[in-house]
């Protein structure tokens, strides 16, 4: 189990999961349209007044992103669990947490990254200025991987549990709160001309911490669920 076999394994895992995801493009698009629809409902529900929309835009986009990333979590491990691949993964000589990280990365590429790329459009819809839009993208880029990483723990814990989809949101949404606070805080600070570097470094710190810690938690949760 040398270094090259580990990174080879990693790459194989990512490309396998991406291929599988590309075969089911509809799933990826569903999440994306959900994100767009939720954000578009706000002007209809609140008011079409641009001033008001601009002030709630960061919160609306971020909350919609939290819910959208929640939707796709169920698929993270369930297919592998059903066809027995997961049990094989537990037996591999490579550390499970590294494989988990590869899976979460692949999952983020198809569920988190599209949200980041789409966010400027929604930002414009809600009247954010260019600074706000750029910052929105940066915070989502730093924040959505954290959502996928934390969500993976919840997905692993609720594997094969009845009503798992709703349950996972109950477990994971409270843990998303710090990301939500600093994600929206950075955009708010930028649009009101204040300093936002602190927010970004904190989001970066959350990302580093969750890259290090959550794969261990997810691996432990998978062992509990599959045993």
């Amino acid at each position, binding site marked *: 189990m040398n270094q090259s076999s580990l990174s080879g394994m990693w790459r194989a895992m990512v490309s396998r999961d991406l291929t599988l995801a590309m075969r089911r493009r509809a799933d990826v698009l569903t999440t994306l349209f959900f994100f767009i629809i939720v954000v578009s409902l706000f002007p209809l529900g609140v008011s079409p007044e641009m001033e008001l929309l601009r002030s709630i835009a960061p919160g609306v986009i971020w909350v919609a992103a939290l819910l959208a990333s929640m939707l796709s979590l169920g698929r993270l491990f369930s297919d592998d669990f059903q066809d027995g691949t997961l049990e094989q993964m537990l037996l591999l000589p490579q550390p499970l947490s590294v494989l988990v990280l590869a899976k979460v990365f692949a999952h983020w590429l198809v569920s988190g990254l599209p949200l980041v790329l789409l966010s400027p459009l929604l930002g414009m819809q809600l009247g954010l200025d260019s600074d706000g839009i750029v910052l929105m993208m940066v915070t989502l880029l730093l924040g959505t991987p954290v959502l996928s990483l934390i969500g993976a*723990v919840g997905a692993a*814990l*609720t594997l094969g*549990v*009845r*009503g*798992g989809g709703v*349950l996972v949101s*109950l*477990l994971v*949404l*409270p*843990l998303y*709160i*710090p990301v939500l*606070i*600093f994600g929206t*805080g950075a955009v708010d600070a930028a649009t009101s001309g204040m300093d936002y570097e602190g927010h970004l470094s904190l989001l970066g710190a*959350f990302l580093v911490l969750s890259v290090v*810690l959550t794969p261990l*938690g997810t691996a*432990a*949760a998978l062992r*509990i*669920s599959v*045993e």
Partner: protein
Amino acid sequence: MVSENAIAWYHFSSPKNFYPLAGRLIPWFWGLAVILLVVGLYMSFFVAPTDYKQGESYRIIFVHVPAAWMSMFIYLVMAAYAIIGLTWKLRMAEMMASALAPTGAMFTFLALWTGAFWGKPTWGAYWVWDARLTSELILLFLYIGYMSLQSAIDDPRRAARASALLAIVGVINLPVIYWSVKWWNTLHQGASVSPTMAPKMASIMITTMLVMTFAFWMYTIAVVLMRARRVILERERQTSWVMEMVNADPQAEMKK
């Protein structure tokens, strides 16, 4: 001495030995809880003087603050049992963690409820997005997540271990959540709640709060031990000692 203690801990970490021990301890903790509650309530209403700014309504803090403290303390203890249960595969620790959760959730709810009834006369609204109340609300969500995960999984062994892991994840996140909420609150200049008291009154008020906290603490131990005994019966129903105990004297077991 150390080894004797270790043997005692090992002895009582088995459900079979823990069950009768808990049964013997419960009345003592009930006694302590009742005495402390009587003293604490007497101090709350008759000893602690009227606050010159808030009038009588400040007396609500004598249940609000102890309930909030207990809600956080119980989560920490629950996570500690969860860690012990997962690392040493101790069933009794897992069962204690699940026995603690409902009481912790109850105190969290009570902290929110009494906070609302303190808030109305103090700030004119039942709910404000104050940092402490918001954190308490998030703590309630964490408790609810823990209990829902446990009840959603049918296999009791997996339910206990999965929820134990969730409690550990929660306790790692709790400080981050708390500081984020605090920061968010100062940024938006929300209402900040600090029970401001005149300095000379502070000491009797703090003593009353401490007495009430100890009363809630003893109550928690008593009720959690009772619930742990039920959890033991449920999870150990296949074992011979449970069957023997039930058959030996069914009526006596019922009454306890």
